[in-house]
Structures are given as structure tokens and as C-alpha cells.
């Protein structure tokens, strides 16, 4: 998920060129208070004009108590895939946004429910309420950790390289996402010149189980794709498992074995995820299966 300011016409135009899985146009923190109105207009026209292909479009709106409702009106009408809520603290925050989105969908003739919600969790309260937030609306596609505000709320600061600092928040968000069946996306890595540190953090959050990483610079995208892309060996093994599972299903068999090891449902699910990641990384196509 690549973050980019909604106030910059050149970035909005070029956003689709970098190979991100999803693009997040920011109307919140990346836009000064004086330019909230102009950025709202730019993002509306960008969504209506540019063809971002299969890349998911997300807009981070402002708080509903400020100009968030105007943001929702502008982007839902323009066909955005997902609205990202900032600083989500309770399930009610999601329910309130859901109501505004529904109102706009009805007003512009868009299918009710077709706009997703991505909830950013950026405070201690949000972390403790992660599960109820993730389950607050069928629109919720995912939840994400916003670490900069979160550490400020905890009265500390980011300590890059320290994997324990965000451990609790990351685990809470992961467990909530998995329980609710939505995506879990990790926070940004702001030190864009430290590519080694970035790579380490991506490897860490992949091991924890996150579905992806938020990025703030196009240079970070290939690193995420590389770390998340399965190796040739992993893909081959996953293919064998998926093929064996298909064959077993056709023959009505239960437990099967691949390369002398027992394969049951969790193993098959992991293999299917490997195949999905390989496809997303462009390493295999449908014909390979």
C-alpha cells in the first residue's frame, strides 16, 4: 500500500507506475489544513480520470468531526475502492463512517456496500478495541497499524530495529484481523534512506503474518515485493501440495502425503497462500497451475 499526498497532481498522475498493490491517496496528515479543499477536488478528478488498472485505490479521509464527510462525498462518488479511516478508536467510528458512505452511495447510485473501509489503528485505545473495530461493518476490508501516532500516544517514539516495541500492537491487530477475516497491514517505515533496516522490518512483519506493508516511497515497493515473493523451491512445493490435494479431493481421499510428509488442511491453506503470493508477484500465471 503506497501512501501519497492527495495535494500533488504529478504524483496522482504517476501513482499507477510503481507496481504497488494498492494506492493510498492522503487527504489527512499529508495535506495542510489550508489545502484540504483543493486536495479533495484533485483526488476526486484523479479517481475519475486516471486508469489505475487492477491496483486498489484507497483514500485516507479526515476525521468525520472535521471535513471527513466532505471527503467521503468526494471520493465515494468518484468510485474509490476503499475509504481509509484515520485514528480509529472504537467500533462506533467505523459504524459512523459506514452510515455516511451508505448515504453517499444511495445518493449517487452506487451499489450500497461496494465501498470498502480500511481502519487505521493509531492509539492504545484503538489497539485494545482492534477486534470490535475489525468486526464493526461488513465493509471492513482490513485494519492497519499507524505506528507514529501510536507511539506518541504511548509517550514514546519509534525505535527502528527494536522488534519488541510494536510487538503488542502488531499481535493485537493480527489476531483481530484473522478473527474477523480481514487483511492486516503493517505501519510505514519512515527512514527511507535506510533500505537495510526497511528490508529487515518487512521480513519481520512477514514472519509475524502480516498481509503487507505500507510504504511511503516508490523505492520501498520492490523490497516488499521481493521479501513477500516466495522462492522457486517454495512455489514448487506449494504446487505439488495443491495438485495432490486436488487429486485427493477428486478421489474422495482424506489425509494425503507429499514427499513423504503428511499434508492436512493447514498445510494446504499455506500452500494456497504461497501460490497466491507467487501469482501476485508475477512469478507464475494461471497456466502454471
Amino acid at each position: 500500500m503506497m501512501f501519497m499526498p492527495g495535494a500533488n497532481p504529478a504524483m496522482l498522475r504517476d501513482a499507477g507506475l510503481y507496481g504497488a498493490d494498492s494506492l493510498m491517496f492522503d487527504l489527512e496528515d499529508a495535506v495542510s489544513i489550508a489545502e484540504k479543499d483543493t486536495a479533495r477536488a484533485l483526488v476526486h478528478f484523479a479517481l475519475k480520470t486516471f486508469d489505475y488498472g487492477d491496483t486498489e485505490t484507497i483514500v485516507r479521509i479526515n476525521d468525520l468531526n472535521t471535513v471527513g464527510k466532505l471527503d467521503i462525498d468526494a471520493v465515494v462518488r468518484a468510485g474509490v475502492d476503499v475509504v481509509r479511516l484515520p485514528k480509529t478508536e472504537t467500533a462506533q467510528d467505523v459504524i459512523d463512517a459506514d452510515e455516511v458512505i451508505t448515504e453517499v452511495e444511495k445518493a449517487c447510485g452506487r451499489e450500497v456496500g461496494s465501498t470498502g473501509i480500511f481502519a487505521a489503528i493509531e492509539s492504545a485505545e484503538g489497539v485494545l478495541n482492534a477486534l470490535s473495530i475489525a468486526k464493526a461493518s461488513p465493509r471492513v476490508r482490513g485494519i492497519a497499524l499507524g505506528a507514529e501516532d501510536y507511539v506518541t500516544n504511548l509517550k514514546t517514539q519509534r525505535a527502528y530495529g527494536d522488534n519488541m516495541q510494536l510487538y503488542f500492537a502488531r499481535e493485537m491487530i493480527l489476531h483481530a484481523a484473522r478473527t474477523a477475516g480481514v487483511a492486516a497491514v503493517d505501519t510505514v517505515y519512515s527512514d527511507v534512506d535506510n533500505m537495510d533496516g526497511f528490508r529487515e522490518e518487512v521480513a519481520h512483519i512477514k514472519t509475524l503474518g502480516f498481509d503487507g506493508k505500507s510504504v511511503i516511497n516508490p523505492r520501498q515497493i520492490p523490497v516488499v515485493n521481493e521479501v513477500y515473493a516466495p522462492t522457486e523451491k517454495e512455489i514448487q512445493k506449494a504446487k505439488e501440495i495443491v495438485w495432490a490435494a486436488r487429486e485427493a479431493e477428486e478421489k474422495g481421499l482424506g489425509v494425503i502425503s507429499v514427499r513423504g510428509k503428511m499434508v492436512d488442511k493447514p498445510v494446504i491453506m499455506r500452500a494456497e497462500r504461497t501460490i497466491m503470493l507467487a501469482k501476485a508477484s508475477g512469478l507464475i500465471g494461471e497456466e502454471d497451475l
Partner: protein
Amino acid sequence: MGREEVPFLPTGIGVIRNMELKQQAVAGTAESSDIMITIDPVGGDAVDISLDSSVEKAFGDRIREVIAETLKNLGVTGVKVTAVDKGALDCTVQARTIAAVYRAAGNAGEFDWKEIDAWNA
């Protein structure tokens, strides 16, 4: 913001009426791919557009046309527009013009998308 049908418009749709300009307003920047639009209410019925564009030779007429159409759709007259363009696409010219007009009318950011989207349908 009152509205009424204006049948003589080529698109045949209604326009926002009474978009009364109250003050000078600016929207946009001088960065590449952007356009800075300054709106000055001057009274009367005239629409005067002055453009300084880095792509004048190829796109100057088109940019003036997009600004003029947008003002017409917004029902704005009695205006002097000063535009400094650095290679903005049509969608950016529209976004900046609309934002500047809404600012000049004292309704910054409260866009009527139903109406605006109908022009581009």
C-alpha cells in the same frame, strides 16, 4: 446554493446558480504538472482569461477552453482569471478552477459533485 435548469447549455443539464464571487481566491501551485488559478471578481458579464503556460504552443487554447467551460458550468461571470500553467492535465485544470471559484464564493471545499460530475458524464 440555489440551482435552476438552464436549457441553452450544450450538455442540457442544470448549473449551479448564484455562485456569487465575493473575494479574490487562488488555487494550485507553480509546481510541474500543476496550474495556479487566481480568480478576481470584477463585476459585469465578462470573462477574461489570461494564461501563462509552459506548453502554450501545443495546449494554450485547450487550457483556456477548459477554464472557460468550467466557469460557464459553474455559472460564473464578471471574472478575471489569471492562470500560470506548468503542464497541467485537463482534470487538474478543472480541479483547480473549481476549487478557486468555490473559495472565491466563500464555500471552500463544499463541492456539489452531483452537478460537477454531470458536466463530465
